């Protein structure tokens, strides 16, 4: 069986090791992110949540997931 290659990415400033060519949508579902309540950036570009399943994560990708919190 072919061994799945691991890659390192950064999510919200922290490193994470994932399987190569994992899609962004599956990765976020695995993390149990409430997708309707967040916005997602991939390498400083806003991601269209409807097209996330087509995005394959690559080495050194930087993901930011933000939501609303209390503020003035």
């Amino acid at each position, binding site marked *: 069986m072919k061994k799945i290659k691991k890659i390192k990415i950064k*999510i*919200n*400033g*922290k490193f994470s090791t994932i399987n190569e060519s994992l899609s962004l949508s599956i990765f976020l579902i695995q*993390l*149990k*992110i*409430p997708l*309707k*309540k*967040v*916005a*997602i*950036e991939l390498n*400083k570009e*806003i991601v269209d*949540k409807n097209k996330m399943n087509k995005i394959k994560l690559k080495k050194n990708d930087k993901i*930011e*997931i*933000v*939501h*609303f*919190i*209390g*503020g*003035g």
Partner: protein
Amino acid sequence: MEKDRLVVAKKKFSSRLIVGTGKYKSMLECANAIRLSGAEIVTVAVRRVNISDKKKPLLMDYIDPKKITYLPNTAGCFNSEEALRTLRLAREIGGWKLVKLEVLGDKKNLFPDMIETLKSTEVLTKEGFKVMVYCSDDPLMAKRLENVGACAIMPLAAPIGSGLGIQNTTNIKIIRSQTKLPVIIDAGLGQASDAAIAMELGCDGVLANTAIAKAKKPFQMALAFKNAVIAGRQSFLAGRIEKSIYGSASSPTTGII
């Protein structure tokens, strides 16, 4: 009589008090204070999701964005680029177009950087945002913001969180008199009477956060702000008497025994 409402970017609100959601002890305390304040608009910040602890309560679980208008705010941004990035993300969360722009220029006094603020207002407006703008109490800058498409002018009363109250009533009056846009006093209020003064100056609304959240009894202060904004607005609409350096007896001077 037509109902007196706050109109921002063609949206009508019954309450003229906007409340910030920061600095409360808990989300529950924040939600209850908002309910008591009667506010229909609350400011919110955009921050990273806690990936490692997803059990943390979410603001949206406590304050329903279908019932209360969320006003995403760029608090903590120190340049145009950061502010634009924050608000573009905020729009992505749920289609919010009505936003509050706040580009700070100094970490100590938290005064706005008006050059960056002006630049950002122009870009955001072109992108279809309705931008309520936190600004200095400089009438010339307020005019410039209006010219580039701001939908509300939000001059500070005093530095954010300082509780000093309105420092320059003259400038606030000038800003109010020169624009058709809503003028909402943002930042620096310390107690309910400060809100009443803002409303009596003719301002269209008031934004309070620290004054309520950090009061010894936040719920009581939320209620006090609600009443002060209503009282101040009514007082403004009623039209005050002229000031005089002499007395004018309240009782008739005829028929004195």
